[in-house]
C-alpha cells in the first residue's frame, strides 16, 4: 500500500533519472572526444601517407600495451600525441628493431628479448629481461636487470641506477638508442 502511494514519486524520480543518465553518458563521451581532439590540435598536421606506414620524424607508436598501466579515465581514441620522453633507435644493429624507430617511454619500460617486455628486442646479445628505464622523482633512470652482456650508458657499463639526460646513448645488445627527454 505504501508502495502504491509512493508510486507517483517513483515514476517522477525515474523520469529525471532517465534524462540525467543520458547527460552523464554525454559528459563522459564528450570528455573522451575532447581528450583526443585536443591532442589533435597540438600535434603536427598529419601528412596522409600514400605508401610508407611509418614515415620518419613523426610521433608514433607505443610498441606494446605492456607499457600501459591499467586504471585510467575513459579514453576512446588513439594516444594523445605529445612530446614525451623517448628512445630513438640510432643503430639497430642486428636486432629486430628498425633504424629511426622512436619508442615512447612511459613511467616504466622494460627492455629485453622475452615477449613480456615493454620493448621487445630480438637480438642474440640481448637477454630475456635485459634492462629497465623508469621514472623516479621526475628523473628517468636506467637499470640493468642482470643481463648477460650488460647495459651500456654512453659507453659505460651500467652497474647501479643511472640518471638519463637528453642525448644520452643507451646500448643494449647490438642496438644503440638515443634518449630524448621530451617535455616530460
Amino acid at each position, binding site marked *: 500500500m505504501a508502495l502504491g*502511494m509512493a*508510486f*507517483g514519486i517513483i*515514476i*517522477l524520480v525515474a523520469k529525471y533519472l532517465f534524462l540525467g543518465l543520458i547527460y552523464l553518458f554525454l559528459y563522459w563521451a564528450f570528455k573522451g572526444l575532447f581528450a583526443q581532439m585536443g591532442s589533435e590540435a597540438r600535434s603536427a598536421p*598529419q601528412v596522409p601517407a600514400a605508401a610508407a606506414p611509418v614515415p620518419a620524424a613523426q610521433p608514433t607508436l607505443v610498441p606494446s600495451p605492456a607499457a600501459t598501466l591499467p586504471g585510467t579515465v575513459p579514453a576512446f581514441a588513439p594516444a594523445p600525441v605529445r612530446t614525451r620522453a623517448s628512445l630513438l633507435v640510432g643503430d639497430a644493429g642486428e636486432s629486430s628493431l628498425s633504424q629511426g624507430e622512436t619508442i615512447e617511454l612511459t613511467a616504466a619500460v622494460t627492455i629485453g628479448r622475452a615477449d613480456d617486455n615493454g620493448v621487445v628486442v630480438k637480438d642474440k646479445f640481448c637477454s630475456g629481461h635485459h634492462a629497465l628505464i623508469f621514472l623516479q622523482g621526475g628523473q628517468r633512470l636506467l637499470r640493468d636487470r642482470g643481463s648477460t652482456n650488460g647495459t651500456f650508458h654512453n659507453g659505460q657499463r651500467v652497474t647501479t641506477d643511472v640518471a638519463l639526460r637528453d642525448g644520452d646513448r643507451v646500448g643494449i645488445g647490438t642496438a644503440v638508442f638515443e634518449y630524448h627527454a621530451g617535455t616530460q
Partner: protein
Amino acid sequence: MTDYSPNIRKLLAISLWGFVLIALVLGYWQIVMAPALNASKYNQRQSLALQRIRPGRVLTKDGVVILAPQRQDGQWKFTYPAGSDFAHLTGYAPRTGLQYGLREPLYGMGQYADAWRDLLAGGPTGNDVILTINSTAQKLAEEELDGRRGAVVALNPRTGATLVLASAPTYDPAEVSSSQEELDLLRFDPNVPELDRAVQGLYPPGSVFKIFTAAVGLDLGLVTPETEFRCAGTERVAHTRVKCRILSGHGTLTLDKALWASCNIAFAKLGDKIGIDNFIEYMKKFHLLDEANVGLPSKKGRMYDFRGFKGDAQLALASFGQGATMLTPLQVARLTAAIANKGHVLQPYIISQVTTPDKRVRMKGQAGDFGQAVKPETAHTLAGMMQDVVEKGTGRVAAIRGVSVAGKTGSAENPQGPAHGWFTCFAPVENPQVVVTVLVEGGESGSESAGPIARKVLEELLETQNR
C-alpha cells in the same frame, strides 16, 4: 599530397554552428513559445489530456448519480445513468453541460489541483461533486413539462440552493453521445432541445414582473397595498397605450387587488410614479439582469435603456413585464426568492459539496450574497399580497391544502406567437422553504399552463424537505 585537415576543420565548425542554431530554435519553441502553442485553439492536447484522467462523479443531493466515469478504449468518458431528466445538467459531450462547467473539480484541475496527491497517485485524480439538486422533484418537473417547451426552476430561498433546474424539450444524453445520427437529430431539431431554457431562455416575464414593480413602489414608500388606482381598460400612460386584460377595466382597485387581479394599467401608473432613476437603481439592487452562476452557460437579462428614446413609455410597459424586457426563468426565480428571503438577494448555487476520492470534503458550496434589495418589511408586505394572489386571485390553482402559498401568475405577450405562461411562487409564507418558477412557452394562461406544474413541484419539495 594535399592535406585536407584545415578544410575539414572548417566544415566541422560550420556543422557545429548549424547544431547550435538548431539548439537555439529548440529552446525557442519548447520554452519561449510554449505558452502560446499550448493555448492555440488548434491544439487538442488539453482536451485529449482530460481523457486520460479519471474524473469524479456528479450526484444529486439525494445521492442519484447523474454523471459516472467509464473507461472506453483506454479513454475516460462519462455515462449518463440518470437519463434525459438530467440532460441539461449533464450535457452530452465533453464541452457541454456540467461535465464542462464542473471540469475543475471533476478532473482535479485549477483550484482543485492537488499536486501532492496527484504525485502520490501517479496522475491527476478527479473529485466527486454533489449538487444541490433534488432528483425526485427534478424528475417530476421534467415529467410535467413533457410534450411542451418550457422550464422549471426551484430554489431554497434561505440558502440559495438550486433544487430543480429543468428544461423541455429534453433529450437522452446517452444516445446523443454515442450516435452521430442522434447528435444530428438533436442539432437540427427545430424545437432546440439542446437549449437549457431555465438559464438560457430569454422571455418577456409578463405579469410575474409586477412583483418587482410592487416591491419597488412599496420600498420607496410611494404606495401601500391599500393605495388606489383607476383602471379604465385602455388608457394612455406615459405617452403609450396600455391595455388591461379586462377590456372594460377594473375600475378603482387597491394595489393589492391590482396584483391578484393582475391589472396592467395600475402597474403602468405605478411604474410611472416610480420613475426611471429609481427603477434602474432597484434593478441593480436586485441584480435583476445578472447571469446565473451554476456552472452552465447562462444569459443576462435584457431591459430597455430607459434613459434612451421614449424611455418613460417603455418604463410603463416594463412595469408589467412587457416592452423590451426579457428574463430567464432562473432570474425570475431569483427575484421571487429575494422576496421570500426578507428582501435579501442571493445568487443561486448548485454545488453542494466537492469530495475527494478519499471522502474528504474539499469544498462546501454556498450562495453568492447580492445584498439587501428591499427592506424586510417591504418583502413581508409583498409576500402577503402574493398570498392573496393564490387565495383570492389568478393563482388559485397553486393552492395547497394546509400550506400558505404565495405566488404570481403571468401571461406574457409574445410577438412571435401565443403568450407564454408563467407562474412563480413560494411556500410556506410564514417561513419560506421553497421557491418554484415555471415557464411554459405558448402556454397562454399562466394559471392554466404553468400553475398546476408549479403546484405539483412545490408539493413534492415541501414534502421531502430536502435542503
